[in-house]
């Protein structure tokens, strides 16, 4: 470890403190260092490899290829090792779930008998709910009260709009802010989206909910906004504290008048 890093450790850290990756002897040994620790044939091997590497190095320097640094946290081995431990635990959970809660099978398909409840799997409820948005389909006065799209077309278009909205997020939200506290607006949008996914799923099973259908429709669109606003307010006030921590040294040097 160099002296520089020692001194910075004692100070308060802010963003961008480096990766903090510390090998035991500062770095992976070179071929010459490995050679120095060997005797006999292994040493001879390393002598040859050292030479061979130097030749490669010469060739590389002659070529116009540029090696670039990629900034990020190494996927291998650092992230993978941590993931393996967690993931093998959860795979055990899958097997346990499968053993304890096996699925059963309903009556065979019968085209002449419509069941009372028709539902897709749970993860498609949101999409199924979007198909039931016909009540939002505007009747245009210009067309004499007719609708541009059929209700079910409207539902399919709503699906495309949702997927499209998610797809453009990285092109709208730029900059280096990462945590929700650093970007209250996008945090609020995210929470509103999650709540909307839940409420629209609720809308798809509205005939099973013990709530007035009209009320369900209103709540579907009201709740996301409510939760979004609450999140925004909370994150905004959290950000004050967060920014104060980041800038504490600034305040210490120049106390506000």
């Amino acid at each position, binding site marked *: 470890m160099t002296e520089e890093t020692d001194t910075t450790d004692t100070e308060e850290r802010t963003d961008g403190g480096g990766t903090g990756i510390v090998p035991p002897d500062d770095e992976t040994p070179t071929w010459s260092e490995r050679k120095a620790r060997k005797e006999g044939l292994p040493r001879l091997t390393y002598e040859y490899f050292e030479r061979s590497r130097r030749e490669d190095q010469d060739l590389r320097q002659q070529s116009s290829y540029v090696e670039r640094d990629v900034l990020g946290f190494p996927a291998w081995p650092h992230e993978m090792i941590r993931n393996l431990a967690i993931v093998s635990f959860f795979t055990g959970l899958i097997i346990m779930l499968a053993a304890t809660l096996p699925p059963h099978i309903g009556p065979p*398909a019968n085209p002449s008998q419509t069941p009372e409840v*028709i539902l897709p799997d749970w993860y498609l409820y949101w999409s199924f709910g979007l198909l039931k948005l016909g009540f939002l389909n505007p009747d245009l006065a210009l067309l004499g009260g007719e609708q541009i799209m059929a209700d079910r077309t409207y539902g399919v278009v709503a699906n495309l709009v949702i997927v499209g909205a998610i797809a453009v997020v990285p092109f709208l939200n730029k900059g280096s802010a990462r945590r929700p506290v650093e970007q209250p607006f996008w945090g609020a949008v995210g929470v509103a989206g999650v709540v909307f996914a839940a409420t629209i799923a609720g809308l798809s099973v509205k005939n099973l909910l013990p709530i007035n259908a009209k009320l369900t429709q209103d709540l579907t669109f009201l709740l996301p906004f409510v939760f979004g606003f609450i999140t925004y307010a909370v994150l905004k006030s959290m950000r004050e504290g967060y920014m104060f921590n980041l800038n504490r040294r600034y305040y210490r040097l120049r106390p506000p008048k």
Partner: protein
Amino acid sequence: MSLERKDDHDHKAWMESRDLSRIEGVYLMTLMWLDKRLRIVDYLELLEDLYYKVNLQMPKSHTEQYGLDNKFWYWYPLYALGSFSTLAYIVAAISGALLGFYYTPGAGVSETSSMAYQQIEFIMVDLNFGFFLRSLHRWAAQVMVAAVFLHMLRVYFTGAYKEPRELNWLIGIVLISLTMVFGYTGYLLPWDQLAFWAGQIGVEMSLSIPLIGEWVAQLMFGGFTPNPATLQRMYILHVFFLPFIVTALIAIHIGIVWMQGIAEPH
């Protein structure tokens, strides 16, 4: 310029200058001969680097870096959700291949039940471990969808989709959609009441697409109501098209993560 091949780096002269014993000389000749053809040095270096990297200290996690130790370790599972959904996918693939030994996608017109339904009954009742196998396949699928959803939320709320990683976000959207298509096609395979009427919804959805609706319904469902062709198509989508496409996309998705590094946990 001569046509005679020359030893570019003059290994021979180097060896002569070394004053090697007989054994060493033979050994080095062999080594050079092999290395010239197989580039052993590359692989050896790879292995040794791996060995040294395994012995590296783990990097400081964001919790250590920001002085939040002992408070935030429980966030780590959220960073493993991508791996977890991949693993659930592998579990589903293996159990699905085993189920495929016994399942037949036949929805022939029968008074009581279809071939597909009978095969599912066979798997659940008669086949050794069949009940568990089906259960495992279903739960792996459910868990994979859930993990993928949560993975997307984690990526959103930690801003991991930003600047160099937009492409992976888009691939992720395609993957989550295909995962749900995977689930939907699988949901239809038992050909019970739920499957049949979920198929009905699917047909109606594709019919309501403007202009190309009928064409899409014909292509994906083989008709305007669920019928034996629908089951056949869902089966082929589920066991042939989707596995290739999704596996390739997952490989690209993870490959890009590998190339770009994990978005610094924050």
